[in-house]
């Protein structure tokens, strides 16, 4: 299997920094600027949230960003148009809920219900490299997985603290791009006490190493500081994922673009520092 853009980006820039922001918060225009800032700051992959009205996997920070984005009039069409215009070193992913994928271009609904292909096709056309759908477990992913393969995108799966046994193996065997290792139970959101939970998740990571066929693993949920990033990488992760901490900057900083760039640099530095203490790998 040839490496995808995403896998290649992670391997080349190991340990990778993966950043998330909600597209359209506070406007798609500004999102463009923020994405470029994150790219400059050293993000190796950038996840763009396409807002859905019922974000059941998000904590309060990202919920608020999604509400701002929807209030600003973000739609899938405008989202893709914004992505069309983006030029970044880092590959881009779209993170959204399954209903958004289903409905795109499905107005003339087929007899078998809505179809996921138009969304994936348009995402590929816009230059996106992957899709993350937090409410789509492996069991229901057949149609989207097929469409992603057809259009050359990675479908990124999440592995939770509760995922084990047969289900874990199934997910690892379907994984492409990277595996999103959820550091703790619950929803997204920056937390001060990340380390305890991270520790547990990284023990599981070690176990995956044996079974995994080499797809990189990145850890997210609650990561907000450089030293979290370091710890995670030290424990063996191929990348760290940061979201809510960046949303906070967008909401609060005087110059969000500059702040994002600086924060990305800081986080990337943390990850790299962590590598020194990591088990030898590549």
């Amino acid at each position, binding site marked *: 299997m040839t490496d995808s853009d995403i896998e290649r980006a992670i391997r080349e820039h190991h340990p990778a920094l993966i950043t998330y922001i909600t597209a359209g918060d506070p406007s798609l225009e500004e999102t463009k600027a923020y994405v470029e800032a994150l790219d400059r700051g050293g993000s190796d992959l950038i996840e763009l949230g396409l807002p859905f009205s019922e974000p059941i996997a998000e904590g309060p920070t990202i919920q608020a960003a999604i509400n701002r984005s929807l209030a600003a009039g973000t739609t*899938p069409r405008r989202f893709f148009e914004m992505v069309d215009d983006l030029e970044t070193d880092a590959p881009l992913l779209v993170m959204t809920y399954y209903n958004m994928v289903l409905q795109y271009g499905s107005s003339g609904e087929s007899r078998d219900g809505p179809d996921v292909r138009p969304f994936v096709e348009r995402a590929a056309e816009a230059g996106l490299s992957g899709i993350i759908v937090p409410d789509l477990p492996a069991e229901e992913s057949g149609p989207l997985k097929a469409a992603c393969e057809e259009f050359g995108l990675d479908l990124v799966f*999440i592995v*939770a603290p509760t995922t084990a046994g047969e289900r874990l193996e199934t997910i690892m065997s379907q994984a492409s791009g990277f595996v999103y290792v959820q550091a703790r139970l619950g929803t997204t959101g920056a937390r001060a006490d990340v380390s305890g939970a991270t520790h547990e998740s990284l023990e599981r990571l070690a176990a995956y190493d044996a079974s995994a066929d080499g797809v990189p693993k990145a850890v997210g949920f609650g990561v907000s500081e450089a030293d979290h990033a370091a710890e995670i990488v030290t424990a063996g992760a191929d990348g760290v994922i940061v979201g809510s901490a960046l949303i906070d900057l967008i909401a609060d900083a005087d110059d969000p673009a500059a702040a994002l760039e600086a924060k990305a640099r800081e986080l990337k530095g943390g990850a790299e520092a962590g590598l020194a203490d990591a088990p030898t790998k590549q």
Partner: protein
Amino acid sequence: MSESETSFGRYGGQYVPEALMPALEELEDAYQRYVLENEDGFLDEFEERMREFGGRPTPLQRADRLSERYGREVYLKREDLVHGGAHKLNNALGQVLLAKYMGKERIIAETGAGQHGTATAMAAAHLEMPCEIYMGRTDVNRQRPNVYRMRMNGAAVNPVDAGSATLKEAINATLRDWATTVETTHYVIGSVVGPHPFPKMVRDFQAVISEEAREQIQAQAGRLPDSVVACAGGGSNTMGAFHAFVPDESVALYAVEAGGSSLDIDEEAGLAPNSATLSTGTDGVLHGAMTKLLQSGDGQIMESHSVSAGLDYAGVGPELSHLVATDRVTPVSVDDETALNAFHRLSRLEGIIPALESSHALGYLEDAAEDLGEVVVVNVSGRGDKDLETVLEETEKRDLEAAPDVEVFER
């Protein structure tokens, strides 16, 4: 687990965060063993508790004056007499008991109007289970008495401030709690919605409605009914009232949705002035299942509306979507005004104050009695004590044919 087991035709499934999947597997297993196979006598205990604590069986009553008015035999299935005042306890008690059998330590649930929350709080108190209820702040404020009842039963009530702060947001919040506490906590979902196995399991707990009614109508009318009419929000009283009749092809099944003030949608504002999901919705995924939804072309979920808080939901149970798609169930709708008139009519003519939800089913008699055949069973899913304030307010705004003089209510 094969596709066919987790869904009804193309509807259903398990569209939830990965963290919840193991809990759904565990629940599926418990459902299979305890509910379907009566392991450890689960079903016997459930039925005994529903009898002694819940007040089952409920009567099937011939409504003399409605029968006269509509020129056919109208029978009312009296779920308003269940402990707590609605069919909701059938499900809540079943799930809380199941959680106990599963060794769970804590119960969470969402509620809109507060009926499922009160039923869950009662069941949790009865079975000694700590219990937290999520409820939109808007609903907390407009359904005070139900908040008090939950608190009296020892449940915590957690107001949810997101979005319109109603049922949809309460479900989101409960799912988020569950995603955090799934190892020790059971989520008692309030209708035949959500990911598999909830829609099947809730239906099975509610099926007692039609199992009783099917026997009762044969004993009392000497035959099967020509039609069964039930309101549909999420659809739990609906599936409960229909389930045993589904194989009886001669029995027409009417799911009456909330027509609100209009069936038209304001796509721009993201508002549907109704909750007529089966009648006007399109396929999509919400709260764990593929089903009919009120949504924009982009896939954003609409704010629905109904004078009846319990029907005010943009989704519907996947099995109902399937039964409608396969023409076994006929979806119809009744608007706010017709429902209010039906509320007043049953109160005055039969001495039963129905829930506003149930008033939709009753309203359909007024709209289309002639389509319903000679013998009709209407499910009175709950009592209307909880709706008095709303009905007064909404009646004052209108010139309702069936309402008593509102003036005398001077508040």
